[in-house]
């Protein structure tokens, strides 16, 4: 993620995985994505924060399942045939941590042209600005590059 941001700041193009969560399109640096899996049975964690309410078994590791729709105030929708779990690796206080992310649909891996990068607008969005690293333009779409550390913690 840090590499990603640095690369953006240095003006390079970057490989990202594009996905749709709720009505929005997000881009995650391809480097942080470990794998993309079909939905598997989840286990509810009583007492956990709503966006981290479940865990799943990813190759023998018990991994939190993050549903960031709640963080962005989006309505929760039932899984569709397009739903995927995107397993990402985050650096939390120096420890690499696996997190599975619910995505309504995963698109292709693509390069975003970083010249099109724009800072998150202060107004015009209901989201807390610290959740958004930046917004880039891909084709005609605006794509959010989320700050996963901030969103999950």
């Amino acid at each position, binding site marked *: 993620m840090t590499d990603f941001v640095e690369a953006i700041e240095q003006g390079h193009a970057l490989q990202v995985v594009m996905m749709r969560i709720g009505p929005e399109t997000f881009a995650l640096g391809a480097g942080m994505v470990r794998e993309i899996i079909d939905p598997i049975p989840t286990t509810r*964690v009583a007492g956990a924060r709503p966006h981290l309410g479940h865990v799943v078994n990813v190759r*023998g590791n018990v991994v939190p399942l993050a549903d960031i729709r709640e963080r962005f105030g989006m309505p929760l929708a039932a899984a569709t045939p397009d739903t995927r779990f995107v397993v990402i690796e985050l650096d939390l206080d120096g420890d690499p941590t696996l997190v599975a992310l619910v995505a309504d649909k995963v698109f292709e891996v693509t390069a975003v042209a970083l010249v099109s990068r724009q800072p998150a607008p202060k107004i015009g969005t209901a989201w807390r600005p610290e959740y958004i690293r930046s917004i880039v333009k891909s084709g005609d779409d605006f794509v959010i590059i989320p700050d996963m550390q901030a969103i999950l913690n």
Partner: protein
Amino acid sequence: MTDHDPREVFLAEANELLDRLETTLLDLGDRPDDSALIDTAFRALHTIKGSGAMFGFDRVAAFTHDFETAFDLVRRGEVPTSAALVNVSLSAKDYIRTLIEDPDATAPVIGEAILAELERLVSRAKAPPEPAYAPEPEAPDPEATAAGWRIGIAFAPEVLRNGTNPLALLDELRDLGPCTVVPRLGNLPDLAALDPESLALGWDVTLRGSATREAIEDVFLFVRDDMVLTLTPLDDIAPAPDAPVAVPVPAVAAPVAEPVAPVPAQVSAQVSAQVPAKPSANPPAKPAASEAERRGSARGTEPRAASTMRVEAERLDELLDRVGELVIAQARLSQLAGHHADAGLQTIAEEIERLSAQLRDTTMSIRMVPIGALFSRFRRLVHDLSGDLGKPVTFVTEGEETELDKTVIERLADPLVHLIRNAIDHGIEDPARRGTSGKDATGRILLAAEHVGGQVHVTVRDDGAGLDVARIRAKAEERGLVAPGTPLTDQQVYQFLFAPGFSTAQQISALSGRGVGMDVVKKTIEALRGSIDITTEPGAGTAIVLRLPLTLAIIEGLLIRVGDGRYVLPLAAVEECVELPESGRSERGRDFLNIRGDLVPFLRLRSLFEAAGEPDPYQKVIIVSVGEAWFGLVADQILGNHQTVIKSLSKLHADVTTFSGATILGDGTAALIIDPAQLMAGGQIGAAPDGLRDYREVA
């Protein structure tokens, strides 16, 4: 092992030797006349010196040499062992350790001071006319002036496999002076039975010149434990130095009387030497047997040295991870096989189940180590503290053979240091006070370990004054930990001892009183999923019991269903299961049970976990114990036992304390492991442990 840094090997070996040295010195303090102990200490020193020099730890070697020299006087009985000598030796041992671990940070002046003290003790104890000992006290050794040596060399057969090259050693002997080398062929088997990797030869060497005994022994330094070396000054035996046949090994009789010249390689050397020896019908049985006996007695101290091997701890961790994966995969296989009517598949599934269970047990047992090694570390601590504080203390250990997972043992070291320090500093009274209260002036610290159910209990018990409940309470009130006048049981008051920065010591000593430590003890033990009990009796002492799980990796669990979720309870905490009586079924019913006359409160997991769906009409109550307290957990169904491979929860779930971890079930889904202690500590249960007991007393 070969791809390892030899210095690492030396460090590991030196650590072991230093530990052995320390234990020996402490034993020597108790039994000053035990010459076997003195020999052991001397041997340890000698090996440290030799390997230190070999691996470039020159300062270690130099210091150890001087230390050894002084100790040699003790070994030869010229200087008696004394408590002061043991103490100086202990500090010398510590100095060697620092020299090895961090030579740059070690000032030579410390070493010089230790040596000076050692010298003072040794020379004062020695007979008066003797001058203060010279750096080389071997000088008066009359043997050194002998015309030469008769050297008998008998190696253990496996030395070749350990990388020893006997010919190189013989060459080293040659460097000391002119040698006549005669092989002993008595043990040679027939050609067909010859194993080129095992050494059947021995040698008798006649060495002329002024080499010292020590110089000769040094040649064999690294194989000393695997051989029998006999040294006889030449003057002592019949003056027939050129007739090596006279050496007391019968089978040498005929064939090779010539000195064995350097031979190309050790294996071929054996074969070529063996060929001429063959025809002479050797009586191999007798010498072989006596050789074995001699070797056996010489190596009696370490009879199993060859049957153990060192393995890096990480590899064991990896192995356990793999076994964990296997157990999970096997559970899935079994479940799958259960759904199919295929008898062949079921047989294989059962076979794999059996094998993986055995593999799991074996792997777990590899990780189990006796706690004795940890216990022996504290002897030094007690010895030093008892000296520093002027409180004579006997240190007793029990249950050293109790085995625990190595990770648990490693993490126990620091908490035990704190507890033992506290016991000596605060627990044991000074001798005068002990005298007035009619106790033996010498205090007693007991460190014990025992298996209790699925747990290991490690106890630190002192026979001191006991805890002062009123003082702890006053301090807690002063620090605002509890409102004055709150009714508290003694157990609740003791818990304040574990509050960060809590200390009732009136004076801060170098050792304790700063209040750092007990909170660390508690944290460490809880991180190991253990708990701490304190019992104390005024005037009679205090016992602190650490209750620890046997292992951190795989536990026996009870699988239960709550709503549509499945959970695991550690079986070690489960006392019994009962059906929820009619009176408890409604949510507003009485939330306690009558278990054989005791009132046991219970907690409805359905409401705690906000479970969906209708409750099972016949809910079950699982009675669990946490320390002294019992309480019930209401579940919809008990599914059975489950081999639980513990997976830790992610950092992102650090705020969820109800669960101590997760595991993976047979169908591949994750299940959470309930932590009963946290349920109770989190106030989820109406009553705290002692409140509970009050209930029971009322009932």
